[in-house]
């Protein structure tokens, strides 16, 4: 299965959350690929902690592959090449976790017919090799989004299942923007239909992930005043109404990732160790990630409403 990670704005935690989902799937035994189509600002290498492996990939990453400069984009075996001490000891019975980075120093670029064919080649190849392939897309209505909409509408891809995760933060602006990305005239659905996707099928393959959501019940806020708590409750209520009005209400939400201080400070994978022994991450965060990862392939959370 292919999973496309999209967001309307930067700073939604799209990359770090989808990297964490990939990590969680690999822990359960799936072979997982993580494809960095965030052409303008490739960050995946940092999340997976593989800076060393990125040296010398200037001409061999996904940019070069799509432009036809290399036949096979470089792949980084995360378990083997990460500098994160906990990840290096590949957990028993875990599946492979392979990162396909962009070129170091690559930029956003316009894609043509040839790039599309190569994109289809790559996605098919990955789908034949990996159980789940995460594709992290540049924010907004980017070339990357257009390309994968084209690719998934391509006749060769007709039998390849795919799902979309749209990430947004829990604020007024972000809710409106995320809805626009999906539902606006040339949004993901409109743009997809223009390219030959079936509207209902496409809509039923899109779910939202609310990221960095402050939980008023959380001990994080327990020091605050009553007035603060009440205000937060009211805001939360208002946002839920706003989301529902913008067709991204609770029924199309796959999961909610709580506000997590360590993710605010540093984009990284959250391991059990971070929660249990060093306790720098919250248990709720890890549980939310595990649950979203599980729901990705649980059909009861997908389909028409």
């Amino acid at each position, binding site marked *: 299965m292919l999973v496309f990670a999209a967001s309307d704005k930067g700073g939604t935690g799209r990359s770090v959350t989808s990297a964490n989902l990939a990590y969680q799937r690999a822990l359960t035994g799936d072979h997982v690929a993580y494809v960095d189509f965030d052409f303008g600002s490739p960050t995946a290498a940092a999340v997976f902690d593989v800076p060393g492996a990125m040296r010398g990939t200037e001409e061999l990453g996904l940019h070069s592959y799509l432009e*036809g400069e290399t036949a096979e984009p470089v792949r980084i075996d995360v378990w083997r090449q990460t500098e994160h001490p906990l990840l290096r000891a590949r957990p028993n019975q875990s599946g492979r976790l392979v990162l396909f980075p962009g070129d170091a120093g690559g930029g956003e670029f316009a894609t043509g017919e040839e790039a599309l064919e190569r994109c289809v080649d790559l996605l098919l190849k990955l789908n034949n090799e990996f159980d789940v392939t995460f594709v992290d897309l540049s924010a907004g209505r980017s070339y990357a989004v257009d390309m994968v909409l084209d690719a998934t509408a391509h006749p060769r891809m007709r039998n390849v299942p795919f799902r979309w995760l749209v990430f947004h933060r829990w604020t007024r602006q972000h809710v409106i923007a995320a809805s626009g990305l999906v539902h606006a005239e040339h949004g993901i659905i409109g743009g997809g239909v223009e390219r030959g996707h079936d509207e209902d099928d496409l809509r039923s393959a899109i779910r939202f992930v609310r990221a960095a959501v402050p939980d008023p019940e959380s001990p994080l806020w327990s020091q605050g005043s009553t007035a603060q708590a009440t205000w937060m409750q009211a805001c939360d209520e208002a946002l839920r109404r706003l989301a529902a009005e913008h067709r991204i209400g609770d029924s199309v939400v796959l999961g909610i990732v709580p506000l997590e201080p360590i993710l605010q400070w540093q984009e990284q994978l959250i391991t059990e160790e971070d929660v249990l022994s060093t306790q720098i991450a919250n248990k709720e965060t890890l549980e939310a990630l595990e649950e979203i990862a599980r729901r990705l392939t649980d059909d009861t959370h997908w389909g028409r409403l």
Partner: protein
Amino acid sequence: MTEPVFRETAAEPRTQSVPLAHLSVELGHLYMEDFEAGPERLRAHFAEVRPWVEAARTAATARAGGKRARISTCFLIDDYFTRFSTPADVVPMLLEEAERAGLTVDYLARESGCAVTGKVPVAEAVAARIVESPPPGSYGLRPPAAQTGWLANGERSPVARAPQAMKRAVPWQPPHETAARRHSVFLDVELWSDDADGQRLWSCPFLAAVWQLARLGLLRNEGEAVLAPRPHTAGGFPDKWDELPTLLRLNERADPFAAYRTCSVLPTRFLPVEHAVRVILDQVQVDPGALAQVADRSGKERMPVPDSVADRISYVYYSGP
């Protein structure tokens, strides 16, 4: 090594051989405009051709070490780009004018036979055998989308492409002929064009290259010879071009159609087309079985052919229309 006991015919390649002359001389092409110019045009043409055919004959005999050289003559009529008149009208007039100049046309071919003969898509098959000459620096990476339908003798100017954000666009660079000595004579040949309905029209140079391969005995389809000459049996010629065999043997005692080498006598205006033919032939990988047969037999006759297929063809150009 012993021969295996078990064989499967579908699992073994084979190549049919064709009879071969020493030299195939082309007496000319006939296009509609030539025909419309009347029999005088043909008469003038054959008069120009005659001495050169004699010269080619002398040269071939010398190459054969003074023995009788096997030489056949042929003539190509365009029925592909424009259809004009009928075989019943054109062919007798053509033969009469040739005879008047003291020339014999052994074989008559229709140009559309170089595109498709019977059910064999000859031109398409040759197009699939093009192996582009690699510019220095070609290390095995699939070249970024070849210019479909075009073939060059070198590297084209880079196409201005939208660069990645924050990167510079590449400034103009000249094209470069791969085999250039100091300076380039760059040629880019259109092999075909497709019309709005997807119908493919092969270009004149491409069909001319196919024609040369046929005359060199190097065309095969699934190992079988293509464009085998048919004898001319009936008295006259048909009223429709399609009813005329694509390659017709007019002279019963003619030497074989295909030959080790070819020579074409043409007016100078064909020069650009024939330059293009060389560019194409230099980049076609012909059937290795056919190639080996020609090399083997010419070697046994002590008349070795040049390695390169493009070097087996020669021309005489005369000034004129």
